[in-house]
C-alpha cells in the first residue's frame, strides 16, 4: 500500500494542477445547505419539545426542555466528578474543576470506544480472512462464532467483571466482545462477495493464493469493511455506556447512572446530547477518512433518491 501511494503521488499533483486550486470559501458554500439542514433538523426536534413544555404537556421535572438542561451546563458539570472516585490522574483528595471533569470523562469514554473498536476490527478482520484462507481454521472456529454472535453484550457483563474487575479493561472487553463476532461474519460475507472476475484475472496472471488474498481480496473488501466499522462505531458507543453504567468504570455511563440514582433528568439529557454530538462527530470524521483512504469508492453511491 505504501509503495502504491508513493507511486501515485506525481499523478495526484498533476490532477490538482489541472483542476486548479479550490478556494476555502467554495468548500463552505458547498457545505452550507447540509449545515443549514442539520440545524433545521435539530431545531425542529428541540422546537417541538419546547412547545410541549410551553403548553404544559411535558413536565419539566421529568422531561426538562433543551433550554433548561443546556442552560445549566455549569451546574451539571460538577456531577462529572465521578472521575475522582476512580482516581485517574487528577488529585485524589480534591476533585478536578467541573469543566476539566467533563473533559476527563469524555476522554475516558471515547478512549475506550476507540481502543475497543480498534482491537475488535483487527481481530475480526484477521479472523475472518483466516477463516476463508485456512479451511481447517474455519471448521474449528466458525460454528462457535455463529453460536456466540447472537449473545447480547449484557450477558458478557458479568464475564467482563469476573475476568477484569473494574476499570478500563472490562469496558474495552465489552466493546470488543460485542462487536467481534458480527464483524467476523461481515468480513466473511465481504470476502464471499468479491467480484469473481477480479479473482479470475488475478489467477490468470499467475497469482498464488496468498497473492490473490493480499493483492485482490483485501483491497476489494476494504470499502465495505470501513462502512461496517462506521456502523459499529455506533454499536461501540452503546455498549461502552452499558459497561460504564453497570459499574465497571467511571465515564459517561456512570454520569447517566448518577442522573438516574439522584433523579436528575437534566443531567441525563445533557449527557445524551454530549454522546450524540460525540458519536455524530466521530462518524463524520470517519467518513472523511474513508474519502481520503478509499478514494476509489464513489461518495454518493448507495443513496436512493429521485423516486
Amino acid at each position: 500500500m505504501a509503495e502504491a501511494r508513493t507511486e501515485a503521488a506525481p499523478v495526484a499533483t498533476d490532477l490538482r494542477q489541472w483542476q486548479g486550486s479550490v478556494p476555502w470559501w467554495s468548500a463552505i458554500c458547498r457545505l452550507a445547505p447540509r449545515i443549514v439542514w442539520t440545524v433545521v433538523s435539530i431545531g425542529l426536534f428541540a422546537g417541538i419539545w419546547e412547545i410541549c413544555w410551553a403548553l404544559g404537556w411535558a413536565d419539566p421535572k421529568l422531561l426538562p426542555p433543551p433550554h433548561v438542561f443546556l442552560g445549566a451546563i455549569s451546574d451539571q458539570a460538577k456531577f462529572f466528578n465521578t472521575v475522582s472516585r476512580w482516581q485517574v490522574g487528577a488529585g485524589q483528595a480534591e476533585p478536578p474543576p467541573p469543566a476539566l471533569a467533563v473533559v476527563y470523562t469524555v476522554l475516558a469514554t471515547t478512549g475506550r470506544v476507540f481502543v475497543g473498536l480498534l482491537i475488535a476490527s483487527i481481530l475480526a478482520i484477521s479472523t475472518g480472512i483466516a477463516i476463508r484462507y485456512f479451511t481447517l481454521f474455519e471448521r474449528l472456529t466458525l460454528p462457535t462464532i455463529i453460536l456466540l454472535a447472537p449473545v447480547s453484550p449484557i450477558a458478557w457483563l458479568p464475564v467482563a467483571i469476573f475476568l477484569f474487575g473494574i476499570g478500563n479493561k472490562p469496558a474495552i472487553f465489552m466493546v470488543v466482545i460485542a462487536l467481534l463476532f458480527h464483524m467476523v461474519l461481515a468480513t466473511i460475507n465481504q470476502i464471499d462477495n468479491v467480484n469473481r472476475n477480479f479473482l479470475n484475472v488475478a489467477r490468470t496472471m499467475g497469482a498464488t493464493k496468498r497473492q490473490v488474498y493480499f493483492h485482490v481480496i483485501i483491497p476489494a473488501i476494504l470499502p465495505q469493511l470501513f462502512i461496517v466499522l462506521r456502523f459499529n462505531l455506533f454499536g461501540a458507543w452503546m455498549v461502552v455506556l452499558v459497561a460504564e453504567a453497570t459499574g465497571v468504570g467511571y465515564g459517561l455511563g456512570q454520569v447517566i447512572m448518577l442522573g438516574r440514582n439522584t433523579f436528575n433528568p437534566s443531567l441525563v439529557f445533557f449527557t445524551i446530547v454530549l454522546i450524540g454530538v460525540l458519536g455524530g462527530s466521530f462518524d463524520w470524521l470517519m467518513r472523511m477518512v474513508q474519502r481520503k483512504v478509499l478514494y476509489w469508492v464513489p461518495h454518493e453511491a448507495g443513496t436512493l433518491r429521485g423516486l
Partner: protein
Amino acid sequence: MASRVFKPFSSKSAVVCRNLGKVWGEGTPRAQEALRDIDLDIAPGEFVVLLGPSGCGKSTLLFLLAGLERATSGHCWFFGDLVDNPSPERSLIFQETSLFPWLRVWQNVSFGLSIRGLGVAERREIARQALQRVGLAEAFGKRPDELSGGMRQRVAVARALAMRPKVLLMDEPFAALDVQTRTKMQDFLGDVWSQSGASVLFVTHHIEEAVALADRVVVFTARPGRIKTIIPVDLPRPRDLFSPGAELLRRDLTQSLREEVDRAFAEQEALAS
C-alpha cells in the same frame, strides 16, 4: 499427469481440444451439461470466433482453456502442454470491466508483472508500452472510474498484452458497449491482433463481430454446446462489411445461428409446458 495423456498431434497448434466436455455440478440432481465432445485445433496467430446462442457453453470453453475450470471429460493442450492451471500466456478478457478500481490504470496494466515481482521502473515502462499499443498512453495515471466503458476494455486488453500472451481468450468483451463504440473496438482489436501475433479466441453472439474479425467461425449448437459447423473466412483484411463475400457469410451465419436459437426456444417451451 501430462506424461500419461496420449498426445496424438504435433505441438504446433496453439490450442488443441479433444473430446472436451463440461458438466456443471456433476453427480448432483441439478447437473447441467454445458459442453460436449469439443474437438478443436487453433493455429498460432489465428483469429477464431466462437458463435452461438446465449447459454450454449461458449464461455465455459474459454474458462476451460484458461485453466480456471476443469473439464469433466477430455483434455485440452496449449502448445503441446496439457492445460491444468491458469497461465498469463492464456489471458482471459471478460465482458464486464474487470479492472481493479483501487489501482491506477498503469498499475492495473502491470498487475501481472507485480505478481511476478518486477520492479516499479520496469513495470511502468512495460505498462507505458502496452497502453501505447492500445492507443491510451494518456490514461497512464488515471483511475479506472475516470474512463469510459470502451477505454476500460482497451486497458483490459493492454493488461493482457503486457503479459505477452500467446493466446487471448475474449469472453464477449464488447457486449456491454454501445454499437458505435463496438464497431470502433472491432477495428482496434483487428490492429492489436495483427501486431501481437497471438491467437485470439473470441466468444460472441453477434454475427457482425464474426464477419468483421474471424479467420474461422465456430458455430455452436444450443445447450449442451457442441460444434455445429466451422466456417473458414477468407475475406481480405481490413474487412469490407458490405462486400458480396461478407453478405454471403452473414447469411450463412444467420441461418446457422437461427436454427440453434429456434431449437433452444423450442426446448425451453417444452420444459415450461
